[in-house]
């Protein structure tokens, strides 16, 4: 197998041991890239990442099961999680953005290769008020397309998901009030449509049906049609640069600790070239760990993750947007302070 040979790669940076983390499933592919890169540099180290979901990831981080965690929604104190995490770490918990990825609005409609949509129209499609593809609201945005009169079948996630959370945040913020429900990881029950398990389920359902529309991480869009969304006067298709641009220009959450880089994504930006329908996923870590080995591993790994090399590896593997260099430097400096012992 491949494992025996892994010792061959010549590097003596010498980090060793096993580091366990887990959380957001959106990071899974990026984590695979990071782990491969990091383990390549440190053959004696093993990093595990369980894609168990952000909630479980945060919980396991708080109760000490994970040394680090990935989460799609920044940890906050709505349910006391932030305090609990601080208690676990004995200090302000580290929260750095690690994975920024555009979310694509995917559709499957014969004869329509290009589709422009605004946040309001998307909200109205997913809340059930627009039911036909030739609805005037859609037609207005697509004067060149010949839209059939088919029924629209919106497909959403049935599992609790970071993608849904970010998608609904976008609709709520940019949808001109068309989206009434509170943004959440669980699809609001009052809005019907097809539900599907996981990103792959949504992609599968959109592919299988006709006249279907859904949302998924841009890297999973495959051969499906991808809608361009309205930003100001232009229509932008999902792009890593556009997403990175939005994150770079978004403020951090007010009142957060210096270790907390949670960004308040500006979903309503009209800046040219930006793509505000995106997902920001964070890494949680502690500033201090009891064991030196653990501290070194977390520090080494996270440093790699936010480094240019790490961000590029994730971009290649998962189609994510590399962090803007200022963000990346800020994150690196926070991570650099990780130490062991008291």
């Amino acid at each position: 197998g491949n494992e025996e040979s892994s010792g061959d790669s010549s590097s003596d940076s010498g980090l060793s041991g096993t580091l366990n983390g887990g959380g957001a499933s959106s990071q899974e592919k990026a984590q695979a890239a990071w782990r491969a890169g990091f383990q390549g540099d440190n053959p004696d180290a093993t990093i595990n990442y369980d894609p168990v979901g952000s909630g479980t990831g945060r919980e396991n981080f708080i109760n000490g099961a994970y040394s680090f965690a990935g989460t799609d929604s920044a940890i906050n104190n709505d349910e006391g999680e932030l305090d609990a995490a601080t208690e676990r770490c004995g200090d302000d918990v580290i929260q750095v953005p690690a994975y920024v990825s555009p979310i694509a609005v995917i559709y499957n409609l014969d004869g329509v290769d290009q589709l422009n949509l605004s946040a309001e129209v998307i909200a109205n499609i997913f809340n059930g008020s627009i039911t036909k593809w030739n609805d005037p609201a859609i037609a207005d945005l697509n004067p060149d397309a010949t839209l059939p009169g088919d029924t629209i079948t919106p497909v959403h996630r049935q599992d609790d998901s970071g993608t849904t959370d970010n998608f609904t945040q976008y609709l709520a913020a940019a949808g001109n009030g068309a989206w009434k429900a509170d943004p959440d990881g669980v699809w609001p029950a009052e809005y019907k449509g097809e539900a599907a398990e996981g990103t792959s389920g949504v992609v599968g359902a959109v592919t299988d049906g006709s006249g279907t529309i859904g949302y998924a991480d841009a890297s999973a869009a495959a051969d499906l049609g991808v809608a361009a969304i309205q930003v100001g006067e232009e229509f932008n298709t999902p792009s890593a640069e556009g997403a990175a641009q939005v994150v770079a220009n978004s403020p951090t959450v007010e009142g957060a600790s210096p270790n907390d880089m949670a960004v308040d994504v500006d979903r309503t930006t009209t800046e040219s070239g930006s793509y505000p329908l995106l997902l920001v996923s964070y890494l949680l870590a502690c500033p201090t760990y009891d064991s030196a080995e653990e501290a070194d591993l977390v520090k080494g790994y996270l440093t790699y993750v936010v480094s240019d090399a790490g961000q590029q590896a994730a971009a290649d593997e998962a189609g994510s947007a590399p962090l803007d260099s200022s963000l990346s430097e800020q994150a690196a400096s926070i991570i650099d302070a990780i130490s062991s012992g008291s």
Partner: protein
Amino acid sequence: MTDTLTPEKQSPPSTDRPPNSFSDRLFAGLALAAGITIMVALAGVFVFLAIEGAPGLSVDPSFYEPATTFAGYVWPLVWGTTLAALIALVFAVPFAIGLALFVSHYAPRRLATPVAYLIDLLAAIPSVVFGLWGGGVLNRYMVPIQDWLYAHFSWIPFFAGPPSATGRTMLTAGVVLAIMVLPITTAICREVFARTPRLNEEAALALGATRWEMIRTAVFPYSRSGMISAVMLGLGRALGETMAVAMVLSASPIVTLNIISSSNPATIASNIASNYKEATPDKQAVLIATGLVLFAFTFAVNFVARWVAGRSDRRMA
């Protein structure tokens, strides 16, 4: 020659050997211990569910959305669980009995063995694969069937429609569940059919029964309680199946008889699987509480089944 009762050779047996030897008691003790282990394990599961789930019965109403109480939250799930399991049984039971009969009484011997083997193979297919297949292959073929049902039978509440464009419906989930339930139910039915005493089958044949009449007079009555337990095992699997349902069914929290539309209630198990991972602790407690409900539900179903099987056994005694 051994002794116990030979006074010429031995002192009275009373002092010689205890009435039940140590080995016998040890073995019986082991057997009993195994039985008690099961009770303890089950009690453990129950206690775990109760402790972890109890807080979920009364958390902030926002966790029960769109309902406001736990009962309102769990009711569509109970409904979906029941509906999916019933659809699965409606399809699976006749097929299981037919297949079992085919293997035990109809198929030429050269065919029977490979067929039995193939069916066992079906049991080995992981539920994830059923999910892949049901949600990615089968559903496309269900769309025209559902359209047809809607066109002709929409007056039946089950087919009220409008039919789903992707085929990820209760009906499809039920069919997938039925296929998953089929092997276990078939295997047990086949086993009990094959064990019908040959003498009874011959008695029926000698009275001038056709093969079918022989099966009705000798095989079915003899197998009744075995068949019921086969169905129960199948039902148990259908009720608790997680991944395949989650991957096939398009779920939303509603209660409906309609099994071909895109709004279908989730099952308890699939709902746990779908929502557990991203959930916060409070939400997890709610989900575990629904697990407790599922547990109680299977308890009740078994109770009823036991009563039915008991009645048929009594008639046989």
